[in-house]
């Protein structure tokens, strides 16, 4: 018997418990009552017109976010991957920034920019035009879609840019030599090859939108409508209606699972996109007169996602009254002192967040690495199941996961509710797919023969793991750590249900501050969060030696 087997089996068991417990409880609670099994909760949920409305709102929002993300992401991917657009590095960098910006921070920023009364853009408009009404109102369905889309389009962008990077321009040139015009080449050769990437990018964007809690909570609730996630959250308001939350979680879960299945199919057939890829040189398509208008378009979009929101956050952090012009009188550091030294919740929230971030990233990256190793090297029977389980939480929106964990850990034997541990479990579960994918890619890059060579020369399996595999996988695993850390410090949708007064994290404090209308401290904490995020991103790029969005350059 191989001495290493207990290690693999323990990792596998941890995973099963992590996944199975919350989902099992959701399913069970949604169909049980004091008098035995029942479908009553489902009936209540789906017959309530208000809940039907929330379902419909979610569908509308997710669909339009998907479309908008493709409309924004696809052209930018083409422009940066294929043309002589100036400033490509900058644009890629900014898209990356938008990728890691917590969407709920963007939503806050846009409240300050485009709130109907005090919103800066609306004030500017009124000053310039002398009109009385607002130019834009962010507290609407289109406003919500807009704010979600500008932080979701990078998913589509990455998908398409990476696909385009694999298609050699030879394929396009072959068509051009046969007499096809430029547009025709794009329509008959390039487009069909990236079509699966576009579609699956669309699905990815829809999935993001479906699972989102922060932006709808900030923009839809004041506008007077719910989405599924905000509705589930409100089921936890006193008195909590956990069975309803469970029953209402199921459609979201099913929709996510279904969409992911479709996406997998699409990607499965994508093989041909990479066929021409190897070694094919790419020549930039000249944009001619369109170079600068195209650049302007990209920058305008990125202004909406980055410059304006970051700017308004910085302004709010530094001013006494965020809506007033930034004059000397209005300038202050009081928000910082208030946030970090006077506001009671902040210090412990910062500590909690860091503690959870480090713990989750460390345990998560370790577990992900173990699992990826087991599945890559096929160390135990049933390793395919492990890969499936590790990726499974992707179908569980944060809010739904929280519902499951809430039910699972508010009762014996594991009374975790009220401690940081329940958040820890939530984060590890939620980040497992990202961590696993990263670690998996890492081990795919370590040729198994490197390990075999160690074995045959006399090293046991664990020694080979420590002396050969680990050093080679190190940078990949550090990157995994960073990915998880970034994911944890910005987490809101599960935290908002699982926190207790003693276990607040930064995102929850920001959300609380919103209820109190304290924009200055929100901005301060938001910037703090962004600083941590970008610090981690920089570390990760260093370690990986390339930008993390893409295929290797």
């Amino acid at each position, binding site marked *: 018997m191989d001495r290493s087997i207990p290690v693999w089996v323990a990792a596998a068991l941890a995973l099963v418990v992590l996944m199975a417990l919350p989902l099992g409880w959701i399913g069970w609670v949604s169909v049980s009552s004091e008098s035995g099994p029942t479908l009553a909760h489902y009936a209540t949920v789906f017959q309530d017109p208000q809940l039907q409305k929330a379902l419909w709102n979610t569908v509308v929002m997710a669909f339009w976010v998907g479309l908008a993300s493709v409309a924004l992401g696809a052209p930018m991917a083409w422009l940066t991957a294929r043309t002589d657009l100036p400033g490509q590095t900058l644009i890629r960098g900014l898209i990356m920034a938008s990728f890691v910006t917590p969407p709920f921070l963007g939503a806050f920023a846009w409240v300050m920019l485009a709130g109907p009364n005090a919103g800066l853009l609306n004030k500017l408009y009124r000053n310039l035009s002398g009109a009385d009404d607002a130019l834009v109102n962010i507290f609407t369905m289109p406003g919500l879609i807009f704010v979600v889309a500008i932080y979701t389009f990078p998913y589509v962008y990455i998908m398409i840019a990476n696909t385009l990077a694999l298609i050699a321009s030879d394929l396009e040139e072959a068509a051009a030599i046969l007499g096809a015009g430029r547009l025709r080449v794009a329509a008959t050769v390039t487009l069909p090859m990236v079509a699966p990437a576009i579609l699956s990018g669309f699905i990815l964007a829809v999935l993001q939108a479906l699972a989102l809690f922060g932006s709808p909570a900030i923009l839809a609730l004041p506008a007077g409508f719910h989405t599924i996630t905000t509705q589930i959250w409100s089921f936890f308001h006193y008195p909590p209606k956990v069975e309803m939350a469970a029953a209402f979680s199921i459609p979201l879960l099913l929709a996510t699972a279904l969409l992911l299945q479709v996406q997998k199919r699409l990607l499965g057939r994508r093989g041909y996109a990479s066929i021409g890829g190897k070694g094919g040189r790419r020549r930039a398509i000249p944009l001619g007169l369109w170079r600068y208008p195209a650049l302007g378009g990209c920058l305008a979009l990125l202004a909406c996602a980055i410059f304006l929101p970051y700017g308004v956050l910085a302004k709010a952090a530094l001013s006494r009254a965020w809506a007033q012009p930034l004059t000397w009188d209005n300038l202050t550091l009081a928000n910082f002192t208030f946030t970090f030294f006077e506001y009671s919740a902040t210090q412990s929230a910062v500590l909690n967040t860091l503690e959870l971030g480090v713990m989750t990233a460390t345990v998560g990256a370790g577990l992900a690495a173990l699992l990826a190793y087991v599945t890559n090297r096929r160390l135990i029977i049933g390793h395919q199941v492990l890969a499936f389980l590790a990726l499974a939480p992707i179908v569980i929106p944060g809010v739904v996961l929280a519902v499951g964990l809430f039910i699972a850990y508010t009762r014996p034997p594991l009374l975790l509710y009220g401690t940081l541990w329940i958040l820890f479990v939530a984060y590890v579960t939620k980040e497992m797919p990202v961590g696993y994918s990263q670690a998996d890619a890492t081990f795919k890059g370590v040729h198994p*023969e490197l390990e075999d*060579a160690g074995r*045959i*020369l*006399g090293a*046991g399996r664990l020694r080979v793991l420590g002396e050969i595999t680990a050093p*080679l996988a190190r940078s990949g695993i550090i990157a995994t750590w960073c990915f998880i850390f970034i994911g944890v410090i910005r987490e809101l949708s599960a935290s908002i249900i699982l926190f207790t007064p003693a276990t607040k994290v930064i995102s929850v404090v920001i959300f609380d501050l919103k209820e109190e209308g304290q924009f200055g401290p929100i901005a301060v904490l938001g910037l703090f969060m962004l600083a941590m995020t970008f610090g981690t991103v920089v570390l990760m790029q260093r370690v990986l030696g390339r930008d993390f969005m893409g295929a290797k350059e």
Partner: protein
Amino acid sequence: MPGVIVKELTKRYGEVAAVEGLSLEVKPRELVALLGPSGCGKTTTLRVVAGFLRPEAGEIWVGDRCLSSPSAVVPPERRRMAMIFQSYALWPHMTVAQNVAYGLRFKQEVSRAERERRVREILKVVHLEGFESRYPGELSGGQQQRVAVARSLVVEPEILLLDEPLSNLDANLREEMRFEIRRLHEAFGITTLYVTHDQAEAMVISDRIAVLYRGRLVQIGTAHQLFEQPRTRFVADFIGKTNLIDGVAAAPDRVARGGLSLRVASASLKPGAAVTVSIRPHEIALAPASSPRTPGEGVNVLRGTVQRTSYLGDAIDYQVQVDGSDVVLRVAGPPPAAVRAGQEVTLTLPAAACVPLTDSD
């Protein structure tokens, strides 16, 4: 120095057998090549021998130790073997010296100083003195190959396994390394199993060649035996160029196809049985039809028409349509060309060169 015995080895992936009922013996100090086209199960066989894979049936013996059987597999690290991989599998995070010294660390009897001495020594043997502190990424393909060789030899393994070690090198270097590996084998005398899909490589390097086809051993023997007396169509075709004529045994020593009848190098054919005859192009003598001919004992004489001639530099390749038959024979002759396309020729085929292939495949 023990040998290796592979007994009735079967290895399946799911339903598909990658290796089936393979038996093979490598004698002490012998170098046997496993030769066959890609996908025929060479790597699988080697990895079972190395202990990376568990066989579904059969056993691997080294000396008097049974190392693998379906019920028990001694792990690779306890087999006293070394292996050279197709990818070289050098560890990029270790220097050349660290790579080479790795296996010695697990030998208690080798002190640190002794280890360093042996590393220096073996690097000299593979002509890599002074490269100790380089990283594999800083070496050429050929040098990496040598490091891999050194790393395997330095541990003084009982058995050396090589999996297409030369296939990543360019043609010139490959040829050079063939002789180098043979030289090292003669110097160290380690029992070796060498996997390749290149018949020329197998012929240069090995004492004996085991030809694999679809997971089975079809023939084993010296290069000379395989070339002169192939037993199956596959072996005849895979090792060197040959003419294959499908016919029927007409007599114990005759094979007929249509109007063509050949004396063959066997007197024990079963009349009526299907037989394929293999004739090497260089065994056929070709002369203009007008020249005098002396049909002796045990010689087939055929008439034919040259369809085309190709100049190959060191030889001329003739395609000759045999009269009264659908058979086209390739004939190799020395330059300059004796005849031109369209001319009538006489072909002389010694019966001893007409090898009947009786095994299927």
